[in-house]
């Protein structure tokens, strides 16, 4: 008898068992498969959402889409105003922000915090990042403002700062802080306190670029220029466009800029895979138990089938097909629930987590790879008990001897 004909008998037995078998067991098994699939992809989606949110925070509050840096061995980009004009002439560029960046020490009432301080043109910065909308208290600095500073909540303290003890311990808007940059001490009035949830930005401070130029003794220079592009162009294509303008400085996409984030992302990916593996192991055990109980209940039927000459492989295959059909229905239901209910719901009502709102997006590759692993679990989880049982003697199967 050829394999195809044996397969037909297996499929015949499996389909009849699913359609006409115990409805409760069928429903329960499919429900278990659906929940396992959802559990695996939900957790994965949450971690995936966290990664996306981390990246989004960095793009929205620090790097923009591209970052131009000085050529090697140079500290500054020269003649930034001309360069910015050139860049902003491209239709794909929304804006650019030339920043002076320096480490400094901010002190207030005996407490001091070492931090990175940026000198920015507030108008330009608002074209690139959403810093202006991240104010918790006070206001964003404006172009004519001099001697004013905005502080991230990790610097000011209060407002739910994560590292309160390392902050200035609760500086408020209107307070005066002392800022020391490259040996120069200046007093600044705190104009605003912000929180972006992006820890690098929240641990920084911003002053007007004119103040920074004065302190550093430079003019029309920058340590970096953050560039915001339109959404219809990829970062790599935008980089090529800028290079075609003859810009000799280093142009990096935010991906290259995100050293720390990559570490976090790879950690999250590792976690995601580890939890998926645990989820799959649990899935395997549950599938094994559900199918094992189902098969043990059919011990005598297996014996009768063997007695009347049904091939052991046909019997085992019929149980594997059943499990795969259960898995197929369960996974399909899980996918539909995720795709048409959970994902759209979390897009409208994002989950609020520490790094901000996240939506649960199910990527097809993710869904298919997890589904494939669940199918594998169903095949192994059904094959082992079916094989072990079907190889028992007929006396044991039929009469329990």
């Amino acid at each position, binding site marked *: *008898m*050829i394999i195809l*004909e044996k397969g*037909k*008998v297996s499929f*015949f*037995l499996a389909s*009849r*068992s699913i*359609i*006409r*078998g115990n409805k409760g067991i069928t429903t329960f098994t499919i429900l278990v498969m659906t929940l396992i699939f959802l559990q695996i992809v939900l957790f994965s989606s949450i971690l995936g959402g966290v990664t996306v949110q981390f990246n989004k925070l960095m793009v929205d509050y620090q790097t923009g889409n591209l970052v131009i840096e000085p050529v090697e061995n140079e500290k500054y980009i020269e003649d930034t105003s001309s360069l910015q004009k050139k860049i902003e002439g491209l239709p794909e560029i929304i804006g650019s922000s030339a920043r002076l960046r320096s480490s400094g020490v901010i002190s207030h009432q005996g407490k001091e915090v070492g931090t990175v301080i940026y000198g920015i043109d507030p108008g330009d910065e608002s074209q690139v990042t959403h810093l202006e909308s991240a104010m918790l208290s006070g206001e964003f600095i404006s172009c004519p403002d001099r001697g004013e500073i905005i502080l991230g909540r990790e610097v000011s303290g209060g407002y739910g700062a994560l590292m309160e003890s390392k902050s200035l311990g609760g500086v408020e808007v209107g307070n005066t802080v002392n800022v020391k940059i490259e040996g120069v001490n200046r007093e600044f009035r705190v104009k605003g306190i912000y929180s972006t949830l992006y820890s690098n930005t929240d641990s920084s401070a911003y002053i007007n670029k004119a103040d920074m130029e004065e302190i550093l003794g430079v003019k029309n220079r920058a340590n970096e220029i953050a560039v915001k592009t339109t959404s219809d162009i990829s970062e790599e294509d935008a980089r090529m466009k800028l290079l075609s303008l003859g810009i000799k400085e280093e142009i990096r996409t935010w991906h290259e800029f995100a050293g720390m984030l990559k570490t976090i992302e790879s950690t999250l990916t590792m976690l995601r895979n580890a939890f998926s593996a645990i989820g799959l192991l649990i899935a395997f055990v549950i599938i094994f138990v559900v199918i094992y109980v189902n098969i043990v209940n059919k011990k*005598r*039927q297996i014996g*009768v*089938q*063997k*007695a*009347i*000459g*049904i*091939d*052991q492989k*046909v019997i085992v295959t019929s149980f594997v097909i059943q499990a795969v059909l259960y898995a197929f229905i369960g996974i399909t239901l899980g996918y539909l629930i995720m795709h048409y209910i959970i994902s759209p719901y979390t897009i409208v009502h994002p989950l609020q987590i520490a790094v901000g709102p996240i939506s649960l997006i199910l990527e097809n590759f993710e869904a298919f790879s997890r589904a494939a692993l669940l199918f594998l679990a169903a095949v192994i989880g059904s094959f082992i008990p079916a094989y072990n049982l079907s190889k028992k*003697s*007929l*006396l044991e199967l*039929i009469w329990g*001897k």
Partner: protein
Amino acid sequence: MENNTKSDVIIETKDVTRIFYMGEVEVKALRGVSLKIKRGEFVAIMGSSGSGKSTFLNQLGLLDIPTSGTVIINSIDTSKMSEKEKGNFRLHNLGYVFQDYALLPELSAIENVCLPLMMQGKSKEEYQRAASAVLISVGLEDRLDQFPSKMSGGQQQRVSIARALAHKPRVLFADEPCANLDSLASKQILELFRKFNKEEDQTIVMVTHEEWHMEYVDRVIRLKDGVLES
């Protein structure tokens, strides 16, 4: 009781023993049974409870492996067969009727009967025609698509007989086929056996403990304490 003069022997056993182990206790269910069953014979194996009659039937039907001795069916020494070969042999040459019918509850009457034929690789048309014919011959023409749970015990046993006979086996084995039936249904089943035995020359080996069943069979083999009663 045994007549060895006829040459057309379908089953021959030679000194078959079967020992079961229950913990450390050795139970000798069969203590060396030798006999011959002729082609076309309707034989009843009788004996009191624990006499070894069902154990002996299981050896004849290749459902169990004797501790020693040989079972030869249709001139083939079955002791030399692998489990897979025995399965294949059962599929093509033997039919079984169990005390509790042993139908697959998720299959209709005709599907239960079709199953061994499907396994034999018959075409859909072939197996459906054969299954319908045999179900009609056992008087279930109006119950082809009925499920076992909707049938009486007698009807289920008739489906079981149809399943056992659909592939025209060389030997039909029946283990107390009437044990769960009332006397009317029992008579109907025995008459069916008799009909197939006479009309189709079907060899039947049946285990029973009812003395009145003797009137339907050609020969009675009596077992006592695992040996043939002389």
